[in-house]
C-alpha cells in the first residue's frame, strides 16, 4: 500500500507536466513564452500574501510566547486525565490549528519523552497527521486574493479541527489502547 502510494506520488507530477506540455504543443501554444508569462505572477502572489502572513504568524507567536496556552492547559488538564487522555497531547490539540512548526515540535517532544511506541506518541501522530494548520491556510489562500472578511471560514476550520481531535481520541483508543 505504502510503496504503491509512494510510486504514485513520485510519478504523478512528471505525468501531469508532460500531459500539459504535449497538449500545449499539439495546440501550437508558444510554450516557453506562455510559461514565463504565467510564472511572472509567482512573485506577486508571494508579495500579496506577505502582509496577511505577517499579521497572523506574529499574533499567533505572541500568543504562544505569552504563556496563555499554559493557562488553557491547566484548565483542561484534570478533565482530560479523567478520560485517560495523556495530558501532554493537550498542548498538541491546542496548537494544531495555530502553528504548523510548533505542532511538529511538540509532536517530536512527545515521541522523545514517552517513546515512539507509546500510546501518547501514537495518539499524537494521529492528531498531527490528520489536520492542517487552519490559521496558516487562511493567511495564504485568502491573502492571495485579498479577502479580509472571512465570514464562516475560520469557525468552520476550528470546528472541523475539534471534530478531528475527538475522532482521533476515539479511533486511537480503539486501535492502540491496551
Amino acid at each position, binding site marked *: 500500500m505504502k510503496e504503491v502510494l509512494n510510486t504514485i506520488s513520485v510519478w504523478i507530477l512528471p505525468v501531469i507536466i508532460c500531459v500539459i506540455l504535449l497538449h500545449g504543443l499539439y495546440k501550437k501554444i508558444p510554450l516557453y513564452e506562455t510559461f514565463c508569462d504565467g510564472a511572472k505572477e509567482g512573485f506577486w502572489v508571494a508579495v500579496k500574501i*506577505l502582509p496577511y502572513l505577517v499579521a497572523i504568524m*506574529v499574533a499567533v507567536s505572541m500568543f504562544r510566547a505569552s504563556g*496563555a496556552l499554559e493557562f488553557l492547559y491547566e484548565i483542561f488538564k484534570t478533565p482530560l486525565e479523567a478520560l485517560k487522555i495523556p495530558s501532554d497531547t493537550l498542548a498538541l490539540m491546542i496548537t494544531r490549528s495555530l502553528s504548523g512548526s510548533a505542532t511538529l515540535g511538540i509532536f517530536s517532544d512527545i515521541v522523545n519523552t514517552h517513546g515512539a511506541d507509546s500510546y501518547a506518541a501514537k495518539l499524537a501522530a494521529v492528531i498531527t497527521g490528520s489536520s*492542517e494548520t487552519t490559521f496558516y491556510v487562511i493567511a495564504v489562500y485568502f491573502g492571495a486574493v*485579498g479577502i479580509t472578511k472571512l465570514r464562516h*471560514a475560520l469557525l468552520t*476550520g476550528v470546528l472541523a479541527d475539534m471534530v478531528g481531535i475527538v475522532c482521533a481520541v476515539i479511533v486511537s483508543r480503539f*486501535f492502540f489502547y491496551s
Partner: protein
Amino acid sequence: MNIIWLSLIIISFIFAAINGRMEEVVNAMLKTSQSAVMVAFSLIGIMAFWLGIVKIAQKSGLIDLFSKAIDPVMKIIFKDTKKNSQAYSNIALNFSANALGLANAATPFGIKAMQDLQKENPNDKKVATNAMCTLLAMNTAGFQLVPASVLAILIASGATNAAEIILPTLIVTSISFVSAILISKILERVF
C-alpha cells in the same frame, strides 16, 4: 477576523504581564515578522513554476476540458460557481496534490483556484464567497493519504511499526474532511 486578531494580541500582552514574559512576547513579535517574510518568499519559486505550467494548460484549453469533465461532481460541492468553471480543474488538482502529500504543488493550485473564484465573486471583493469558504475548509482539514512528515519522525525515533498509524490517521482525516465541508455548508446560511 478584526476581533480575533485584536484578541490574540491583547490577550498575549495581558498574559505576558501576569506571567512576567513581556520580553519573550516582544521577541516573538520581532522574530516572527521576519520568519513570515521567509515563508512567503520561499513560496515564490515553486509558485512561479506551477503558475507557468498552469498558464500553458489554460491557453491550450486543457483546463476547460478537465473542468467540463468533473463539472457534475463539483456542482454538488460548489453550488454557487459558474458552469464548467475554470476553478474546478484547479480545485481538483489542489485536492489531488494534497491527498498525495505534495504540499508544494497543492498551494499554487489552491491559490489559482481562489483567483478563479475571486473572478466570479459578484459582491465586494473583500468578502469571501460560499465556494471560497468551502475550498478553504477542504484545505484546513488537510486530507492526505499518507502523513509523510509524521511517519518520518516516528521512524527516526525508532518506532517498531510506524506504518500502523496510517489507517487510523486516514480514518480521522476523512471524517474531519467530510465534516469540514458539511460544517461550511451549514454555516454559510448563517453568516
